[in-house]
C-alpha cells in the first residue's frame, strides 16, 4: 500500500489530468451520439445547445427551477428544484471542485488555447494582487444575478415589475459554453443576434461579445473564464462538504511560492495562508498542480473521505521538475519571476 502511495506521490499528475480532460471532453461533447446520458444536473459545463451532449450543466436546470413563483417553492414544482439541487450535490460531493480541473469542457478548451499560446511563444498575462482581489467577486455577482433574474421573472422582487420572459435562462444566453461548445460539433447555430426585441438584442449581443472575450482572454490569461464562472462560485459554497479535499499543513510551508506560481488561476493565498487547513479557495479548480510543485514533504495533501491519496514530497518535486519536460516551471513563469527579481 505504501509502495502504491509512494508511486502516486512521484507520479505525473498533470499528464493524468490531461488524459482525463480529453476523455471527459469526448464523453461530454459526443456521448449523446452513443445514447449516453450522464445526468441533467452535472456540476460542470455540458451544454444542451450542443447536439450530442451527454449531459446537461446544472446551471440551466437551476435557472429553470428558480423560474417559479414563491408559492410554487412549496409545491411539486419547488420539489423539482430541491431534487435537482440534491442531484447536483450528489455528483459534486464526490469529486468536489476537481470537476473544474479535470472534467469541465470549457476549462479543457482554455487549457488547449494556453498550450497554443505557449507553442507560439507569446507571454501570458497575470492579474496583480489588487486587481485579483477585486475581480474575484464578479463570479459571486454573476451567481447572484443568475439566481435573482429567474426569480424576478415569476415574482416581483423589491417591488419591481416582473422581468421579461425573453431573458429565458439568462446566464445561458451569455455563457461562452453555449457559443463555443456547439462549434465542436460543427454547429454555428448559436452565433446569432436575436432582433426580436430590445432584451433579446442586448442578451445575444452580450453573448457574442463574451464569446470573443473568452477566446482572446483564454489566449493571454490561463483559465481566464474560470475566474468569473458562476459554477465555480456555486461549487465553492458547498466545497467544504466534498469528500475530495485538499489540505495544507502551514507549519511545514516555507512560503517558497511554487504553488502560487504554477497555479493557472494565480491564487496567491495558497502560498501566503499558513493558518488555514482547508486550502481550497473560491477560485481553486483542484487541478493539484500546486501539490506537484510543492517541495515540502506532506505540506499539501489530497485526501478522499479522509484517506490520503496524494501528498507533496521533495522527492516527487525533484523527480517531476528534473526528469520531465512537462514539469519544468513554465517559461512564462520564469520570465515573470526574473522580471519580479529585477523589479525588486
Amino acid at each position: 500500500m505504501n509502495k502504491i502511495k509512494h508511486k502516486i506521490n512521484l507520479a505525473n499528475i498533470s499528464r493524468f489530468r490531461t488524459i482525463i480532460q480529453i476523455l471527459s471532453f469526448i464523453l461530454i461533447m459526443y456521448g449523446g451520439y452513443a445514447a449516453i446520458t450522464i445526468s441533467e444536473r452535472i456540476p460542470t459545463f455540458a451544454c444542451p445547445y450542443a447536439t450530442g451532449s451527454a449531459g446537461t450543466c446544472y446551471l440551466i436546470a437551476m435557472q429553470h427551477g428558480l423560474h417559479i413563483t414563491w408559492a410554487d417553492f412549496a409545491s411539486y414544482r419547488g420539489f423539482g428544484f430541491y431534487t435537482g439541487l440534491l442531484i447536483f450535490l450528489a455528483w459534486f460531493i464526490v469529486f468536489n471542485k476537481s470537476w473544474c480541473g479535470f472534467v469541465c469542457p470549457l476549462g479543457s478548451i482554455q487549457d488547449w488555447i494556453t498550450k497554443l499560446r505557449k507553442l507560439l511563444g507569446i507571454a501570458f498575462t497575470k492579474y496583480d494582487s489588487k486587481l485579483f482581489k477585486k475581480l474575484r467577486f464578479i463570479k459571486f455577482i454573476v451567481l447572484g444575478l443568475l439566481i435573482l433574474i429567474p426569480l424576478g421573472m415569476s415574482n416581483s422582487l423589491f417591488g419591481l415589475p416582473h422581468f421579461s420572459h425573453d431573458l429565458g435562462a439568462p446566464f445561458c444566453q451569455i455563457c461562452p459554453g453555449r457559443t463555443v461548445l456547439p462549434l465542436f460539433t460543427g454547429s454555428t447555430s448559436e452565433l446569432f443576434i436575436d432582433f426580436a426585441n430590445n432584451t433579446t438584442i442586448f442578451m445575444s449581443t452580450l453573448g457574442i461579445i463574451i464569446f470573443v472575450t473568452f477566446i482572446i482572454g483564454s489566449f493571454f490569461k490561463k483559465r481566464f473564464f474560470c475566474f468569473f464562472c458562476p459554477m465555480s462560485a456555486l461549487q465553492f459554497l458547498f466545497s467544504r462538504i466534498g469528500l475530495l479535499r485538499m489540505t495544507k499543513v502551514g507549519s511545514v510551508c516555507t512560503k517558497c511560492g511554487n504553488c502560487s506560481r504554477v497555479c493557472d488561476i494565480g491564487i496567491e493565498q495558497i502560498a501566503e495562508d499558513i493558518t488555514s487547513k482547508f486550502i481550497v479557495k473560491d477560485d481553486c479548480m483542484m487541478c493539484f498542480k500546486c501539490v506537484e510543485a510543492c517541495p515540502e514533504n506532506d505540506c499539501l495533501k489530497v485526501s478522499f473521505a479522509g484517506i490520503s491519496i496524494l501528498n507533496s514530497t521533495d522527492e516527487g518535486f525533484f523527480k517531476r521538475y528534473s526528469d520531465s519536460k512537462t514539469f519544468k516551471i513554465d517559461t512564462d513563469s520564469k520570465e515573470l519571476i526574473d522580471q519580479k527579481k529585477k523589479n525588486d
Partner: protein
Amino acid sequence: MYTKLKTVSIILLLFMSSCFCFAQENIWLSGDPPPQAKRVVRPSGMQHYMAFRNNRGQEKLILWPRNGDTPKGSSYIDSFNTEPEIFVVSPAGDLLEYNLSTSDKGFALTYAFDLEGYHNIYFLWKEVRDETLFVHVAKAERLNHKCQNGHRSISGKIKVKSFPEIVPFEIIRNRFKPTEDFHLILASGNVASFSALENNEAIEDVEFIFVTEKGWSKTVNANEKGIAEFQIPEDYFSKMKELNKDETYHFLLTAKYSNSTSGEYQGKAYSKISYVCTYAGDYEPSPSLYKSSFWPIIIILFSTLAIGSFIFYSRSKRRRFY
C-alpha cells in the same frame, strides 16, 4: 327575378344544412380562447397553451370546441347537436378525467396537465345515415414539458401515439427526426408532415386540407406512404418593430377519407364509411425573420479589434513599467 332566386337558394341551403348538419359540421378543438375567457385564462409554458389553476394550484389546460372551416372564421359553440364521445389520453396511454362545461371560460374542455409528453384529446361522433357510417374525429395534441423536469427520454415522450381501439381514424403529425425535442414549436417555413391512420395504418390518397388563420388553404393528397407535407406559410406581415416572436398563429388541418367497408353500428347497417378528422395546430414566426448570422460577424470583428487593442495597450504600458 334575381332577388327571388337568391332568396330561394338561401332557403334551400339552410334547409339542406339543417338536414345534413352532422355531415357538414366541422368541429375542431381550439387553444385560442373566446373573448370572454381571455380574462380568466393565460398562456402557460413555452408552448403558450391556455391554462388556469384550480383552487389547489393544479394547472389545468383548456380547449374550446369550435365549428367552421377556418381558424379565424369558426364560431365558438356552446353545445353539441350530437353529444360526442370524449377521450383525454395521457402520455402514458391512460384515460384522464376531464370536465366539459360552460363557465366563465366559455364552453370548454379542461383537464389536469401533469405528465410530461404529448396528451391526445379526441372528440368522436359516429352516425349511420343513408347506409353510410359517418365518423367525425376532432383531435388535439398537446405537449407538456417544463425544462426544470429535465430532458431525459425525449424520443419516448415525443413519440407519436395513436389509439385505434378508441378512435378508428386520426391525423398524426410525423415528428422531425432526429432533431425534434421538447422545444419544437412549428414556425413559418417548416415543412410539417402529416399522416392519417385508419386502425393504426397510414393510408394513401387521403385528402388533407390545410387552412391558415388568414384563410390561406392548400389541399394535398397523401402519397403512397400515407404522408402529406405542407410548408407552413407566412400569411402575416407585421412591421419589424411590431414583430412578436412568441405570437402564436393557428392552422386547421382536415383529413377526409371514405371506403366501402360494410358493417353495422347501433343496429343500423352501412355499406360505406366516411371519415373526417380535424387537427388544429399552432405556429410562430420564422426565426429567420429576427435572427441574424451576419451581425455576429461584425460584432466579432469589432470586439476582437477592441479587446486586442486593449491588450496591446496594457502590455506596452506594463513593459515601460518594468
